[in-house]
């Protein structure tokens, strides 16, 4: 591998999240952002003056504000600071975390603040998503981000009952986690007795994708503060180290339907990212290696399906993890102890929230949804665009280069 070593280490030292909800009419956008920013600053004890560069992102066609960083400058503490705005659809939060990593690792800045946010109730979410499609062709065919094709493939592969049960188990486990997370938008308090009823009676959206499987549309903001190794080690809380990350996009047209994935596999960015990232970091067995996985799971069908790809598993290995509840807090590899995207999806922030929640787990102070066993190695993913992925590895201790 001819790529160079990382210039210097970067620690996550401050994290702030607003409560996610569909009714934040009590704040305007800069106010909402400030809530998260303040929490992040309080978290690490830094002040406005310590921030050197701010990176900001969301999907502006949802709120229909052009260059929103200009208006948000006060709430986001940008006055007098360097500032860069990055947007990559649903993966924006992941790109923001990557930016925090680059900007500090490069030596250009010692302290960077990353802010992701969205206020979906101020816009038309499905309209915004449909506008992502090519204006001459796909925009007239597309309707939001809904598809039943994953459910169809899983049912074909595993049988209707097993597939539907797995998707519903995934859903209920995510809801159980959400009930522990005070910031969740939706925590229904589903119990296992409801599984059969919901499986069959939850209103259908597309094919076997039902309302119960699908993520929420939320308002919220997330702020994360990154620091160089030297500065990070001086903070009151132990920093969480960013080991590596990778981004993979794919073309806008789909060209993926018509053949069973098991027999005619179509390359997926989820698996590609996992393969590349783990190979270059010497990880052979991700299920063994990682202690937690905050996956960007916009629906329980996708969550169930991508588990296999992210963990480089085959056949029904990932399904078994769900069936045996190994993905629940207390299991072998807890997935989304925060409740995941199904429980809260403020799109521009969501991917950053996955990263932040994974970091909190490593730090040990996530709150009621903290995994009770030590978390040394964390994995966090982002999703967006036309099946794009960003994948992060976070570590509790430095010194992995020797590994």
């Amino acid at each position: 591998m001819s790529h160079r070593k990382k210039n210097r280490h970067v620690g996550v030292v401050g994290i702030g999240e607003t409560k996610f909800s569909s009714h934040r009419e009590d704040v305007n956008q800069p106010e909402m952002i400030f809530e998260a920013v303040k929490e992040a600053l309080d978290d690490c004890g830094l002040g406005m003056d310590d921030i050197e560069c701010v990176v900001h992102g969301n999907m502006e066609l949802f709120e229909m504000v052009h260059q929103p960083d200009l208006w948000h400058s006060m709430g986001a503490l940008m006055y007098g600071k360097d500032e860069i705005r990055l947007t990559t659809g649903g993966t924006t939060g992941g790109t923001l975390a990557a930016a925090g990593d680059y900007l500090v690792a490069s030596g250009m800045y010692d302290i960077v603040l990353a802010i992701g946010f969205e206020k979906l109730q101020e816009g038309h979410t499905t309209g915004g998503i449909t506008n992502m499609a090519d204006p001459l062709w796909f925009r007239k065919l597309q309707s939001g981000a809904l598809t039943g094709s994953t459910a169809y493939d899983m049912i074909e592969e595993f049988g209707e009952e097993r597939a539907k049960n797995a998707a519903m188990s995934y859903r209920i486990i995510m809801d159980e986690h959400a009930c522990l997370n005070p910031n969740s938008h939706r925590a229904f308090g589903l119990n296992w007795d409801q599984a059969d009823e919901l499986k069959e009676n939850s209103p259908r959206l597309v094919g076997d994708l039902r309302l119960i499987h699908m993520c929420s549309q939320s308002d919220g903001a997330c702020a994360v503060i990154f620091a160089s190794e030297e500065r990070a080690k001086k903070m009151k809380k132990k920093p969480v180290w960013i080991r590596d990350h990778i981004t993979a996009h794919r073309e806008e047209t789909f060209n993926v339907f018509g053949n069973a994935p098991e027999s005619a596999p179509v390359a997926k960015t989820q698996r590609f990212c996992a393969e590349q990232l783990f190979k270059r970091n010497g990880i052979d067995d991700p299920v063994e290696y990682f202690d937690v996985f905050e996956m960007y799971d916009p629906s329980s069908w996708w969550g169930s399906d991508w588990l296999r790809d992210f963990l480089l598993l085959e056949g029904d290995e990932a399904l078994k993890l769900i069936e045996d509840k190994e993905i629940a807090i207390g299991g072998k590899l807890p997935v989304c102890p925060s409740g995941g995207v199904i429980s809260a999806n403020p799109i521009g922030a969501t991917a950053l929230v996955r990263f932040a929640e994974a970091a909190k787990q490593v730090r040990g102070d996530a709150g009621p949804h903290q995994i009770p066993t030590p978390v040394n190695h964390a994995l966090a993913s982002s999703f967006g665009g036309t099946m794009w992925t960003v994948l992060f590895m976070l570590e509790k201790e430095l010194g992995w280069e020797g590994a």
Partner: protein
Amino acid sequence: MGNRVAICAMAQIKNEPDIWYQRMQGMLRECIKPVLDDTGATYDLDKGIRNILTCSDDVFDARTISDNGVTDAVGAHFRGEEKVAQESINGFGYAMSMILSGHDDVVLYVGHAKESQTESRQMCTNLAFDPFYNRPVGLDFQNANAFQAREYMEKSGVTDEHLAEVVVRSRENAAKNPYARNNDKVTAKDVMNSAMLSDPVRELHQYPVTDWAYAFILCCEERAQEFCKNPVWLTGYGSCMDSYFLGDKDLTSNFSMKKASAKAAKMAGIKDIKKEVGLFELSDAVAYQLPMWAEGIGIADEGKGGKWIEDGGPGKMNVNTSGGMLNGNPLLLSGAARVAECYLQLKGEAGNRQVDGVKKALAHGTTGACGQHQGVVILEK
């Protein structure tokens, strides 16, 4: 690891009023193929481009995730792609961090925009203002800049005549630039007779509607020689955000310009911009911004913008040999056009615009109204 990043190749299409015959993907391909050919760079995961940086804008493209349509065109299928949704000058700073961090050795940086696609630039920039107070009043970048123009002109003794000179010079320089938008040459009288858009900004003071695209290949110092013989170096980047409400600030203070240029200079090890930098490309969306940004970076004395023009400052300091943004670059892409000109000048490939003996150049871009956000990049031979 070093602290400078190589620009190994650059390609651009011509700035035009209306590229109706091509869509974004096609425009980009025309820029990307040449830079790949020039450098021999591939998308090989080990040795080649594995991360691509783009610059475009959702509102002007009328497309959520404006980079979504060009993924295949930029080669980002199963490669990384990140988008700067802001003035393209900042993409250079960001790409520097991608490379200096060690994450990526070589980065393809592209951008596209078509101002001609939208029915009104003003309707788009009106959306940059908050929906409660400023938007309903009808503020957009054009009329907001007019406030700044008025205050600045009074403070710095800049007159309608001075502005006319700026426009005339811009057109003359652009006529020597094969990639500049084709505009009619104008006389000072033409400029001063042109209609008022927003007093004191006249029609000919404002940059015209333009479509454009560009591509750069940037590389770490360790491997630059693999891709080109004589790279041009990015040695400094700084940016700065000012406050938002127009009434909160002194519109003539150049607060963010001063800070951004100071930060860029510091990173590049420059102590005195005026003495050490030989060429300047400033994003003058409106004519008054040329002397104003010049004051901000310190090549014109503060409060003396008018005199600076009268004394032939722009010519003497080699400012905007390309014709500047004033001749026509899309909003958000001017920074890249400024870097492109600095690059060509430092490489000695600026044709009959060539200034000899330039070792360091400064490129600038501005986002928002009244220069709320400024970005500055320093380049060296």
